[in-house]
């Protein structure tokens, strides 16, 4: 059942919530359970762990924050590492906002929409939104992402108290959910040669630049190089089949 243009907003919101609860929300929620345990390891209160999920809303940034404090990194180094790891949100948000644009949309609405941009909402949004009537997209997207965020906040809270009590294999499995789910979302959402190539090159270049480029610039360089190659090759294929 696809969202119709004449639905009331409540029904659209319910569709978004159901889509999130069908799997993605649980995925992110379980993925952020690990954050709770990392926050507890550095002696920060549970409120900070849960707030990090709501305010930062980016698994890798949260991992870097708590793991770096545990390792004794300088505050400036922590902020710079997080800024570089989060640079991906610039192209991601620029890519998804046009799908959510409505005439007369205010700056406040756009800032709220942008805050929800993280891997799940982004990958699922690019996949699902084009099939949804433009007037319904904003409500659907917010309902979908807010459901993911609520489940994740509960997961972070639970992880703060529970993760240390879990068997090692299970705790490791929870921490590995983020990379496994990121990759699955990317591949499931890829539509053409360009997307596939971008994924493959990103995977291949990251370990290489990790080795040869220091100072936290490695991810940006591998993303720019891999993405640009994928774009050029994909563009040529489309232009001259």
């Amino acid at each position, binding site marked *: 059942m696809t969202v119709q243009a004449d639905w009331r907003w409540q029904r659209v919101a319910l569709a978004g919530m159901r889509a999130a609860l069908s799997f993605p929300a649980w995925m992110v929620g379980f993925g952020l359970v690990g954050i709770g345990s990392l926050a507890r390891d550095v002696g920060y209160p549970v409120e900070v762990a849960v707030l990090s999920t709501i305010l930062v809303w980016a698994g890798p940034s949260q991992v870097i924050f708590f793991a770096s404090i545990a390792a004794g990194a300088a505050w400036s180094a922590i*902020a710079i590492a997080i800024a570089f*790891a*989060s640079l991906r*949100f610039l192209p991601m948000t620029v890519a998804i906002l046009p799908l959510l644009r409505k005439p007369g949309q205010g700056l406040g609405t756009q*800032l709220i929409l942008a805050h929800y941009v993280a891997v799940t909402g982004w990958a699922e949004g*690019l996949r699902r939104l084009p099939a949804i009537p433009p007037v319904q997209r904003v409500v659907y997207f917010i309902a979908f992402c807010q459901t993911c965020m609520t489940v994740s906040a509960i997961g972070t809270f639970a992880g703060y108290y529970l993760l240390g009590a879990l068997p090692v294999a299970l705790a490791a499995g929870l921490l590995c959910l983020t990379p496994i789910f990121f990759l699955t979302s990317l591949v499931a959402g890829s539509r053409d040669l360009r997307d596939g190539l971008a994924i493959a090159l*990103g*995977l291949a270049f990251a370990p290489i630049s990790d080795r040869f480029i220091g100072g936290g610039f490695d991810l940006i360089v591998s993303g720019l190089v891999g993405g640009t190659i994928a774009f050029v090759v994909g563009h040529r294929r489309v232009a001259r089949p």
Partner: protein
Amino acid sequence: MTQPIPWLDGPLWPYLALILFAFLPTEIWRWLAVALSRRIDPDSAVLDWVRAVATALLAGVVAKLIIAPPGVLGVAPLWLRVGALGVTLAIILIWRRRIVVAVLAGEAALMGGIWALS
């Protein structure tokens, strides 16, 4: 352990640290994107390029989390972490819609491997 900045230290320090050193460095890119996206045509080639860079960057984050694992994930040897990711990748490449199966199979491979090795 990183110590609080002395003149800002207090009971609210963890909240302040979260906002200054985690929230702002992440959120700034989302705000910047809002400022930029108003001037970009949705159907332009620039946006295609931007999407390709975002995709490659995310794939890079995946690779990095596998090479330099956080916390207790380090108990799994590199070959096992790469192998679990390979299982997931193989399944999602064969059945595009089987997201749940792919994730669970990768997780099962990883946790089964750790259990068998310990």
